[in-house]
């Protein structure tokens, strides 16, 4: 399947993993697409759907790495398709995010992601955003954690999320750590107790894939380690009779 190339453009082959409801197994379909020097993977996929195969299912919205909707794996690495350049590649492999159920082709169900995020931090972060009053001094230093666009890329990149359905995931722990760092009148104790758990902060094996893959600079791996440091420190203080709670 080919789309015509115009002047200044060349043709690149896109291998796209396909799977529809009822399919016994996924398979790759190949599409030759005209791309320019600044073409993105998302632009190519939209062109495939428009010109070659309208049955290709994918999600996208903002086209500028703000909504987190177009997360997928390109040549094996997670990223937002809207800002992933085709570059000089002659062949590009595109697959849906890993560790989340595939709905159709490149679309995954985000429910497991939100299931981990919701009880730990998501509602708390939203609530703290709405507490009226002046922002505390120095809060700008923490605003990068608000950059989480809930794309699910960290969960896809995590090797443990691949085998452990109970692991809450990097995004949830990073979101909860925001509450600990900036309580804004909330009590961080219950949040810390939730994260100080075998299936939360202590499940991580320091692969750092989540932070490397995150397109938004959230650095969830660092947040997980900060939780561990705080939890371990509290335990050490209790052990040596210096008080302190996690």
């Amino acid at each position, binding site marked *: 399947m080919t789309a015509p190339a115009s002047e200044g453009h060349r043709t690149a082959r896109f291998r796209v993993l396909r799977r529809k409801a009822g399919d016994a197994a996924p398979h790759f379909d190949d599409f030759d697409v005209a791309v320019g020097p600044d073409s993105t993977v998302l632009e190519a996929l939209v062109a495939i759907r428009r010109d070659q195969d309208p049955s290709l299912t994918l999600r996208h919205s903002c086209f500028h790495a703000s909504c987190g909707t177009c997360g997928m794996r390109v040549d094996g690495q997670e990223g937002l398709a809207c800002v992933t350049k085709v570059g000089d590649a002659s062949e590009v492999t595109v697959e849906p995010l890993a560790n989340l159920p595939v709905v159709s082709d490149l679309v995954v169900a985000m429910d497991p992601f939100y299931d981990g995020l919701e009880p730990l931090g998501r509602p708390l972060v939203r609530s703290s955003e709405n507490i009226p009053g002046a922002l505390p001094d120095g809060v700008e230093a923490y605003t990068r954690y608000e950059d989480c666009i809930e794309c699910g890329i960290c969960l896809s990149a995590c090797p443990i999320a691949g085998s*452990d359905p109970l692991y809450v995931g990097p995004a949830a722990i990073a979101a909860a750590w925001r509450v600990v760092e900036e309580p804004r009148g909330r009590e961080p104790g*219950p949040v810390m107790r939730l994260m100080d758990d075998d299936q939360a902060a*202590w499940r991580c094996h320091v692969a750092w894939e989540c932070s490397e893959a995150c397109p938004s600079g959230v650095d969830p791996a660092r947040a997980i380690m900060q939780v561990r440091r705080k939890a371990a420190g509290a335990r050490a203080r209790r052990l040596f009779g210096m008080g302190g709670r996690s």
Partner: protein
Amino acid sequence: MTSDTRPVEPPPSRDEGPRSAPPFVGQVVSGAVLIVLLGLHMVAQHFIVPSGLRFYDDVIEWLSNPVMVAIEVAFLVFVTYHALVGVRAILFDFGFGKRTERLITNLLWVVGIVTVVYGVALLAAILNAA
């Protein structure tokens, strides 16, 4: 459309009982001890003992030194702990659930105790056979 923005308390922790030190901290401590003990083990065997403990008599002489025995037993205890906590961590990466996790932990305690007892009994058997 209005959204409810009242602060929400997180649900109770899944485990409200007293929290034991996470095994990760135990891994770090035992790992640090092992780096020292293994270093001593390697240096002594390959740089101090002339034959590198190849010959039976050299091994028996080595094990007849109570300081060496203490180091080797300590090494066995720490390496067994570190190894089996590592196995536990790998098994927990399957997300089996709390009940199965407790069963795994108890089984590994048994394996660990049997390993250390076997090692100490073996040491005694070696010295008796000499």
